[in-house]
């Protein structure tokens, strides 16, 4: 559906770490929710998170009764010998009739495409398809209908890309921003022995340590390595390798070698993204609370509706929800970010 400005109403795709969060997101105005099973088949394989197959089934009924879609993330890479767990996830998704599965691994995509030709496939950001040719490879090979773009392209590049690919585009607009190319990062496995690609884990809590000294300075550690240190009273971030402070020969002081602990917030770029041909706007945060999901989804629901109606969108309430209260537009506005 297009309005007078030539904008097509985008689908608001929202995170659900639990069935309760899913209902919250749907009630707050999500057009689609995405979730994962309680195992290594998805990239947010955290304790206390995710869905049993029965919960997916119940959630699907809840979402469909309210005109919302349910997308199942099966977006990790099964190591040889363990493919059955991912095959079962795809079988379950097809049997329950989820609206799409989000896949990254070529083998999983092939299994889904060959076994269930009617099952809609979205290409996960974990597949790291960042060029028209790479995206076309997945479209032609597996019939992928939508690509979730890596968070490394500018809006202008997304607009160009839109003209060159045969599928829909989903773009991240809000939430935690990883600095490394998705699906190609072994840092967590290097330090903790838990793999992002194979286990769906990044910086597992079991390897996180906080140490406070007499002056109340807090040191955060992941496995054997110090990731950051905070003066007394400074708010300490979770120790994620790509957001830590390090030393190198080229500099005198500790610095954020990869990125500062900021969150992505593209609210100001929403109209541009919609004009660039983005079909779906994605909010990150399956690990977040229901209160967070309600605030963020509600704010973006109103913003998208305002933009479609030609009104100015307001976002002040979102800043308080970003990580460490600091935000970035990341790569999206210009190449200078690189």
């Amino acid at each position, binding site marked *: 559906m297009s309005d007078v400005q030539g904008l097509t109403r985008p689908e608001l795709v929202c995170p659900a770490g639990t069935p309760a969060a899913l209902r919250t997101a749907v009630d707050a105005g999500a057009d689609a929710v995405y979730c994962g099973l309680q195992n290594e088949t998805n990239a947010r394989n955290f304790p206390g998170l995710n869905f049993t197959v029965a919960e997916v089934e119940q959630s699907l009924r809840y979402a469909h009764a309210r005109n919302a879609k349910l997308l199942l993330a099966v977006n990790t890479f099964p190591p040889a010998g363990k493919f059955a767990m991912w095959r079962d996830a795809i079988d379950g998704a097809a049997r329950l009739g989820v609206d799409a599965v989000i896949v990254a691994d070529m*083998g999983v995509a092939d299994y889904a495409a060959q076994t269930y030709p009617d099952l809609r496939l979205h290409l996960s950001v974990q597949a790291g398809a960042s060029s028209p040719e790479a995206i076309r490879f997945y479209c032609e090979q597996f019939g992928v209908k939508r690509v979730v773009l890596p968070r490394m392209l500018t809006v202008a590049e997304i607009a160009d890309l839109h003209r060159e690919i045969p599928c829909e585009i989903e773009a991240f607009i809000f939430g935690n921003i990883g600095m490394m*190319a998705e699906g190609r990062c072994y840092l967590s496995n290097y330090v903790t022995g838990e793999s992002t690609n194979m286990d769906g884990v990044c910086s597992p809590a079991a390897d996180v340590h906080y140490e406070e000294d007499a002056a109340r300075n807090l040191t955060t550690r992941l496995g054997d390595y110090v990731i950051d240190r905070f003066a007394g009273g400074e708010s300490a971030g979770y120790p994620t390798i790509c957001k830590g402070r390090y030393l*190198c020969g080229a500099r005198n002081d500790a610095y954020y070698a990869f990125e500062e602990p900021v969150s992505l917030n593209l609210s100001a770029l929403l109209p541009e993204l919609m004009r660039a041909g983005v079909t779906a706007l994605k909010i990150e945060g399956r690990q977040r609370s229901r209160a967070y999901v309600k605030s963020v989804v509600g704010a973006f629901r109103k913003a998208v509706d305002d933009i479609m109606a030609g009104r100015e969108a307001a976002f002040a309430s979102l800043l308080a929800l970003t990580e460490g209260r600091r935000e970035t537009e990341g790569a999206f506005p210009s190449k200078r970010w690189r």
Partner: protein
Amino acid sequence: MTVQASKSELTLGPVLFNWQPDVWRDFYFRIADEAPVETVYLGEVVCFKRAPLFDDDREAVAARLKAAGKTVVRSTLAEVMSKQERQMIEDVCAGDGLVEANDGSALLRLRGRPHYAGPFINVYNERTLTVLAGNGVRNVCLPPEMPAEAIRALAADAAKLGVSLEVQVFGRVGLALSARCYHARAHGRTKDSCQFVCNEDADGMTLRTLEGQPFLTVNGIQTMSHDYLNLAAELPELQDMGVARYRLSPHSRDMVAVAAIFRDALDGRIDAAEAGSRLDAFNLGAPFSNGFYRGRRGHSFTPAATN
């Protein structure tokens, strides 16, 4: 020199660092003349901005390697977004030689003719291998985080599909890629204004923790391990699995000597302990690791059990 007849091939991966063009050329000339490796991968994998620096020498290097009896395989960029990067992929894939794809755009362009899949392609399982074999992939260099049990499981299917498997056995391990250049960032620049500052670090730039502990290595947009992968002790097991090719990733040290050590180890002339002590003599300035292979923390090193 002649290469020992053996089922196990030794290969030299692409130079991942930004060396001075004359150093780069002379490195390959010496590899051509002296190193006991069968296959040499050639091409810029990390940053499209570096590639033109080697334009003058690339064909001469390829010719010298071929004249010495080496198989030359062109490696493609690992991260492809911009028009220039896409053009590079198109140009490399347009040649009639063997190409190793390192991203999805190269997989598209090479489909339907024999080609290789590099370590930046996520080949973790038999079904992915089957898809790629159907497209013409003949050799797969596995992602470095693959544990032994998965390699063993995959090797059984690879043999049936007629695809050879390759495993990196020496050198710093690529751990991540980014759109942002961290070399430029360390020097207060951006990727566009980098002035090729990555050429100051022949084996990458060390990142230390706030305690001063060496941790990671920055190489442009790539983040690598601080330690050097050393699978000398695991060679017999990998050979038993049916892995055909063993990749050495180039460093500024004497790679001819490194290749000789691994050749001797592959051919059973020296054991793991002997290989280890000969590698120790290079004073790499960083420990060895084999944790990924052992299914442990990637940076860890478990010495071979002594019999």
